[in-house]
């Protein structure tokens, strides 16, 4: 018997009990309990009647830098980090946005040298961009850029290089970060990176969402 069928039977029993109480019990407080049971059972039955979709988490992807063969592989990892562990997308937009809390990163890989981007990520107060969006006096953006290489985000050097590679690729720029550079960086043997993007959750019919 499926979980839905079992819950439907329980719901019917609850509604039935409520009706029986209302029909045969005189005690007013018990009658109120019966009434509440009837309402709750009916609600459950209706909810069980609509399409049952559960949301399953996506598989956790693991990347081993040792397996990175080309700059494009690196940019792909950078993209994942951008939208997950790096938390860049929490504040930055890619393309104009009225509501983003930090500068738009569209085309940033073409405008800025990788060294400058690296400095912006690890020394964010070294040079501060101002917000010119509103046509009045330029002001600081609402959110303050954190040191991306420190807690709580704490990206490693290879991870930062991957993000820079992604920004360059996204801007249509040739990727100047070399795989060898990463392997030679001070985090020579970083732990395998576990990343998953925000939008990767999977909705499936409830039958496939098996509870452990």
């Amino acid at each position, binding site marked *: 018997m499926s979980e839905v069928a079992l819950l439907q039977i*329980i719901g019917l029993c609850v509604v039935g009990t409520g009706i029986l109480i209302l029909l045969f019990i005189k005690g007013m407080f018990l009658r109120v309990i019966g009434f509440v049971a009837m*309402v709750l059972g009916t609600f459950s039955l209706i909810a069980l009647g609509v399409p049952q979709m559960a949301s399953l988490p996506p598989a956790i992807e693991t990347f081993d830098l040792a397996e990175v063969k080309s700059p494009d592989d690196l940019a792909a990892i950078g993209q994942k980090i951008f939208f997950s562990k790096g938390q860049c997308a*929490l504040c930055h937009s890619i393309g104009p946005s009225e509501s983003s809390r930090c500068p738009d990163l569209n085309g940033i890989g073409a405008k800025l040298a990788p060294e400058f981007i690296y400095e912006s990520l690890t020394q964010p107060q070294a040079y501060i961009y101002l917000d010119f969006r509103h046509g009045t006096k330029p002001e600081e953006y609402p959110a303050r*850029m*954190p040191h991306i290489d420190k807690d*709580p985000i704490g990206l490693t050097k290879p991870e930062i290089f991957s993000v820079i590679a992604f920004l360059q690729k996204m801007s249509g720029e040739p990727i100047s970060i070399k795989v060898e550079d990463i392997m030679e960086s001070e985090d020579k043997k970083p732990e395998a990176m576990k990343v998953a993007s*925000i939008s990767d959750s999977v909705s499936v019919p409830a039958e496939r969402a098996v509870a452990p």
Partner: protein
Amino acid sequence: MKSANQIQQSNVQSFLGKMPTIFKWVSFLSVLLLPVIAMAAGAETKAMSVEYRDVPGIGSRNLVWIVAQQHLLLAGFVLGVPIFAWVCELVGWKTKEARYDKLAKEFTKLLTSAYATTALFGGILLFLLIGLYPKLMAYLTDMFFPSFLVYCLLFLLETATLYMYWYGWDYMQGNKKAFHLFLGFLLNLFALGIMAVPNSWATFQASPVVVGDGDAWARAWMAMQNPTWMPVNIHRLIANVVLGGFIVGAYAGIRYLLAVSQEEREHYDWMGYVGNFIGVFGMLPLPFAGYWLMREVYQYNQQMGITLMGGFLAWLFILQAMLIGVLFLGANYYFWMGITYRIPGSENSYKKPIMAMLVVLLLCLGVWMTPHSLVASLAEAQKMGGTHHPLLGVFGVMSAKMTVSNLMILVTFMSFIMYWRAGKQETAGWAKAAKAIMGALLVVGGVAVIVLGVWGYFVPAIIRINYFSVAQVLIVLFIMVTFTPLTALLMKSAKTTTEMVWGKMPIRAGYSLVLNAVMVILLMSLMGYARSSSRVHWHIYGVMRDTSDYAFSPALGYAAAFMSLNTFVYCLLVAFIFWVATLGDKAKSQQTKVVDVPGGAPLMAGGAPSTAENIESGVLENHK
């Protein structure tokens, strides 16, 4: 009858006698809470090795779900009731009508008995979270620790203020009343803080912001100011008033059903009316607050908004519409029954408007419940040319739903106005003109809401969301803020043609009050599930992934069964708490002889029965 001095003296003794109890409670809660905070602070190091713990059988998530739901619902009641208890007391003080003071005291009695249970569930929840989700709690503790201290301080202040407010009630009458009201104000102020601080933790999980450098206080403050914090604060504040109002209404409804004397019936009929009024009063602006919250969610992360409204949670909003619809119908039905049974002779003159309102409400509910896409077989979908119904499909979109929700609010507001005016004859010379203006405003406003709704189909979504929907909301609000003072002025000089008769409502009135409370509890549970599920597989959206076995979001049917269970447990818990709270009254009522004083004067939208108890308690004397 005792003299005022004697009463005051005995009140002082009773207050002083209870003071040690206050301090015992405060000390107990301090002792309970501070080690918990210390443990939370130390959780970071302990959590290094263990990310999750499970509970055999029920599962860690389900256990946390039950306890958190009970705590949040109790907390909603405990934070909502002081608001209207204080307003009621203020009304009693201003109008010098003792029955309001008595009612406010009765509300506060329910509050004090629920307070300790709320704290108890809060403590259990915290222990469970630290034990079962150490990694998450370590992260949150690191981020928010200073706010934990603020929360503790607020909790201690709230506890001390509540006990002074409650135990000092009789003592602080007469010229001390102003101080008592000030205590009530402080109580609400601290309660607001107690609600807002934990809201920031929960909203940070849903809409985290990157926290820059700074000391612990600065970092905590940055994290608190996340995009959904304020909308959730406002939404919860209003929802707490609604929950408190309808729970009090249900309590009065059950007491009404169980009443053995006419005096009890009259009192609980009136209390039920006030509870329903407070619930409806809060319910009218609630959809607007919900709309603002959803806008912020979309602005923060469109993916999250889509998951909620168009993804696997889309059907949840059909259930929400059903619950809100039943709530609107229940609240209106209670108003209509009030017109029929409390104001004899009015039923005939209001029969047609009531029928028209019922039809409008049902039509609106039908539109609101229309799903965007239908569950159809392949053959049916091919016939329809998709999963959208060729005729009904147009009702499944936001433009239609926003329109009908505004219309339902308007109808409910008009039910209230109708109830207010029933049994009275306006005597003011300008009454005719005022009624004509109100009628014209209502028609123009209603038509404008519909026109904007239809027009919304032909403009880009951003125009509809930013301008049309906002305009619809403003139109309804404008009608409400125009009608209320106008009607109040009209009623001030109106002649009462039919006296309000209390205690004559049929049994189904009591049941409708219980139904309203159940609907609100279910709604809060449902939306809690929605908010939690919108984070999908993240503890902290986009920042900390849920890697436990419970990272999936259960389907709606399973979740609804759980919500029903939680609601049932909560109802039993509240019934038990209230039963304990009223044990003292039963003993007292056997000792005190109460004499009826007929004819409570009708006040704003309803008077109340007066009893000699108010006069004997010295409340009226002290006002003189």
